[in-house]
């Protein structure tokens, strides 16, 4: 059981002071004037007489007693919690759905929309009748059950109080589905014939406190749910928002980077606003944009000499929602892959690896098979120098500790097996989804001879021929091995002869580029990815670094252990801003990404007066509901005032007994 504190610490202190004060007053009362008398004989008798006889005779005139009775009556009334008649029934079930998405942080109502919603919810919780049960769910793009069904209004109140604003977008469907699951009986269906209801229907009222900034939810079965929707927020709210922000290279001048932003104006806003662009918190450029209501406008900045860093775009000035006034874009850190090509001389391969695109990604080192026996090779491997090694019909003594790509040769070890050379081979199918095979058209290539693969069990077949798999990729610990089961140029014959016409097809350099990108972990795009708040992002990182640290915009460092996974999935993207990924112990970031709101729904602050949920249209609740006003507080105050008056009277002896 958790202790729910209904009061703040200072309030507890005041509470504790009350008995102390009474105690002190009691001593004050005892401070009587001492008087010596000949004998207390008669006094004693007189006092006893008073006690015994005066009770009923004095009742009429005893002001003190009257005050005490009033005090106790007020206390008792307060304890009974009287109130105005509530407009809700009793023994009902309520589900409080409270929106805490980004748009609820808007400050068009006192505090914020979320504070207003919480206030309304607490009012409503206070007006719950004995026997009513309620639960509290906070929702944004996901639902978070803050408190399960309970009668304990203190728990409900503290659950509502604990709801914090988020910067997420809004999806009400999950919350509604959760509510619906609690209210509507489960069904067991056997082929549509025997549709059996397995539980009692539990009708419930959903009290939806939101600004309605979510798309229509067509497929929620409401059935036993009654939705009571109260929009929060004012209609006429001015808000300027950045709806998108991206950077890219100018195709005509590759050294120049362009930043684009799309701005939206919502509500009664006709204003020109200054847009500032910062790089690593230094002002780079600014522009003035005239915003007209319900229209979008664009702004473009050209940037020179910007290799990497974080760009921040900001609409200056204040409006109702702050979260959409700032947007971030990141230029990814420059990092090139170290690539080792071991070949007896393969022009086609070398040419394909010498393209500009590959050059941006990787630094290629070409060596002959003799290099594999040298000391330098071993030293470089131990230093983890290579990200990717390509072996063209030559084989080292053991598989190097990096990603590998093999052409026409069986890797050492037990994992891979190649069948006897056969040919010709016909390409049947290939995996178009795999990053290495994207955008490839391989149906027309011809292969003279090849060795169909017997890959390890965990392998993914990328290219299937009529005689078996020809290209496959399989994980090896933290690394990946890709094997192409046919040579490009057959070195067994002299002079070497071309084994396939793939070399002259456009798909060959593309395959190599994709392989370098996928296996090498290189960075080709300068523009880092951006996700909405709360959405997870998959980061493909070089496998050299088993432990990663992600620095959030608020400076929080999150450790992430990648294990054997190719990519890590990072989900703690609650805050808007730039995130940087560091390898353990390194000062330069490996990767960057940004979290931006970029949501027209969230930025458009006009509350929906009508909701479309399931097959119903839910109008705004006629707000007769918040009728109940608690009386016990004023009563308690009255009791305290009476107590004070009583003390005053007692000490002054105003009364005439």
């Amino acid at each position, binding site marked *: 059981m958790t202790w729910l504190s209904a009061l703040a610490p200072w309030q507890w202190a005041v509470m504790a002071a009350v008995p102390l004060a009474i105690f002190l007053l009691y001593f004050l009362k005892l401070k*009587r*004037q*001492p*008087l*010596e*008398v*000949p*004998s*207390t*004989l*008669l*006094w*004693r*008798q*007189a*006092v006893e*007489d*008073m006690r015994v006889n*005066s009770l009923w005779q*004095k009742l009429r005139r005893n002001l003190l007693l009257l005050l005490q009775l009033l005090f106790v009556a007020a206390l008792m009334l307060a304890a009974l919690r009287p109130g105005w008649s509530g407009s809700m029934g009793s023994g009902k079930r309520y589900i409080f759905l409270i929106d805490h998405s980004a748009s609820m942080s808007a400050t068009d109502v006192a505090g914020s929309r979320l504070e207003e919603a919480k206030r309304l919810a607490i009012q409503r919780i206070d007006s719950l009748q004995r026997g009513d049960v309620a639960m509290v769910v906070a929702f944004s793009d996901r639902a978070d059950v803050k408190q399960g069904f309970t009668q304990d209004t203190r728990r409900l109140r503290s659950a509502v109080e604990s709801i914090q604003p988020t910067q997420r977008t809004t999806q009400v469907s999950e919350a509604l589905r959760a509510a619906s699951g609690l209210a509507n009986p489960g069904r067991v269906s056997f082929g549509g014939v025997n549709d059996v209801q397995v539980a009692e229907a539990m009708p419930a009222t959903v009290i939806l406190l939101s600004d309605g900034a979510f798309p229509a939810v067509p497929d929620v079965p409401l059935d036993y749910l009654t939705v009571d929707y109260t929009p929060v927020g004012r209609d006429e709210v001015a808000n300027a928002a950045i709806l998108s922000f991206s950077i890219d290279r100018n195709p005509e001048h590759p050294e120049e980077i362009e930043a684009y932003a799309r701005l939206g104006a919502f509500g009664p806003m006709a204003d020109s606003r200054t847009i500032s662009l910062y790089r690593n918190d230094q002002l780079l450029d600014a522009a003035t944009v005239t915003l007209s209501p319900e229209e979008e406008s664009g702004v473009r900045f050209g940037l020179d000499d910007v290799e990497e860093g974080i760009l921040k775009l900001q609409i200056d000035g204040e409006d109702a929602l702050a979260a959409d006034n700032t947007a971030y874009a990141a230029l990814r850190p420059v990092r090139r892959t170290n690539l080792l090509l071991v070949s007896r001389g393969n022009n086609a391969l070398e040419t394909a690896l010498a393209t500009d695109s590959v050059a941006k990604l990787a630094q290629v080192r070409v060596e002959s098979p003799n290099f594999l026996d040298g000391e330098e090779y071993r030293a470089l491997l131990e230093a983890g120098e290579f990200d990717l090694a390509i072996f063209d019909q030559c084989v080292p003594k053991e598989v190097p500790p990096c990603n590998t790509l093999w052409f026409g040769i069986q890797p050492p070890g037990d994992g891979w097996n190649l069948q006897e050379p056969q040919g010709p081979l016909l390409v049947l199918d290939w995996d178009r989804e795999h990053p290495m095979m994207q955008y490839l058209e391989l149906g027309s290539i011809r292969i003279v001879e090849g060795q169909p693969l017997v890959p390890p069990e965990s392998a993914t077949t990328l290219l299937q021929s009529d005689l078996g798999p020809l290209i496959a990729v399989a994980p090896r610990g933290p690394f990946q091995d890709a094997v192409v089961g046919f040579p490009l140029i057959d070195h067994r014959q002299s002079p070497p002869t071309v084994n396939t016409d793939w070399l002259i097809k456009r798909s060959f350099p593309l395959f190599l580029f994709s392989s370098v990108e996928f296996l090498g972990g290189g960075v080709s795009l300068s523009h880092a990815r951006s996700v909405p708040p709360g959405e997870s992002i998959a980061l493909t990182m070089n496998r050299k670094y088993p432990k990663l640290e992600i620095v959030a915009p608020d400076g929080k460092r999150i450790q992430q252990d990648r294990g054997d996974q190719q990519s890590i999935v990072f989900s703690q993207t609650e805050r808007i801003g730039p995130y940087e990924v560091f390898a353990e112990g390194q000062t330069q970031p490996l990767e960057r990404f940004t979290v931006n709101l970029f949501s027209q729904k969230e930025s458009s602050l006009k509350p929906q007066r009508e909701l479309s949920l399931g097959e119903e249209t839910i109008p705004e609740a006629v707000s007769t509901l918040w009728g109940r006003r608690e009386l016990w507080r004023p009563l308690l105050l009255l009791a305290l005032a009476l107590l004070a008056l009583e003390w005053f009277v007692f000490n002054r*002896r105003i009364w*005439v*007994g």
Partner: protein
Amino acid sequence: MGDSELVEGRFQQLLPAELMGKLERMELVSRKIFRGRMKGERRSPRKGQSVEFADFRNYTPGDDLRFIDWNLYARLDRLYLKLFLEEEDLHFFGLIDNSLSMSFGQPSKLEAAKRLMAALGYIGLCRGDRIVVQGHSQASRPAKAHRSRASLPQLLDQIDRIQPEATPSFREAVQSFCIRNPGRGIVVWVTDLMDKSGYESAMRLLMARRMDLYVIHLLSPEELQPQATGDLRLTDCEDGDQREVSITPGLLARYQERLGAFLEGAKNFCQRRTISYLPARSDLAVDRLVNDYLRQRGLVR
């Protein structure tokens, strides 16, 4: 010799000279006739040698021949003894309650009691009565008796020495007093009757000795009309008993009721036992007390 000369300055307070003149003409009256010890100025149940004829009686051998009425013998030829009334002294006992509660009042109750006792003692001395005055605290010691006007200073000194102090309960004090003073006579008990263990047993003891008992119930004005106000913690000066009271008109009325009941109770108790009960205020002047009050009650004449 003027008696006032016998009274030293320090006793002026106790027995003012102008009062003495009035007192000289008075005498203590006992409703009972007691046998005294010495020849005095009072009629005694005994027949003796005074000038006042009482009776005749047959001569029996051994009678004093001096009292034979020879004239009668001559006429009747029979021997008769002529009896005269014997005049004897009266035993007067003054018992002063000198408990701490008697020290209250302006003048204090004890002071008033002492003045009263001095006045009564002086009356007695003037008539040759045997006067014994004691405080409660001295009751366990034998007291000196005074008989003549010459011993007035000693009497006054003895009275003057009585000071408020812790005393035994009424019953114990009276018991000691009865044991130490075996004779019969008038007992004047000046007290405030404020004893939590009650005064009844003490009075019964005195009545059992067939004393002619006068109880002078002395109360101070503070006790009769308390002027206290506010929230008080009352402390009993004798036993330290504490009572917390808030003085209210209601409480004061209740107190008056209690006081009335207390006085009435004492009065009834005394009446039923032929005890003379005289309530008195401590601020009443002694001459008024003696002249009007005690004379009305028949203690003095």
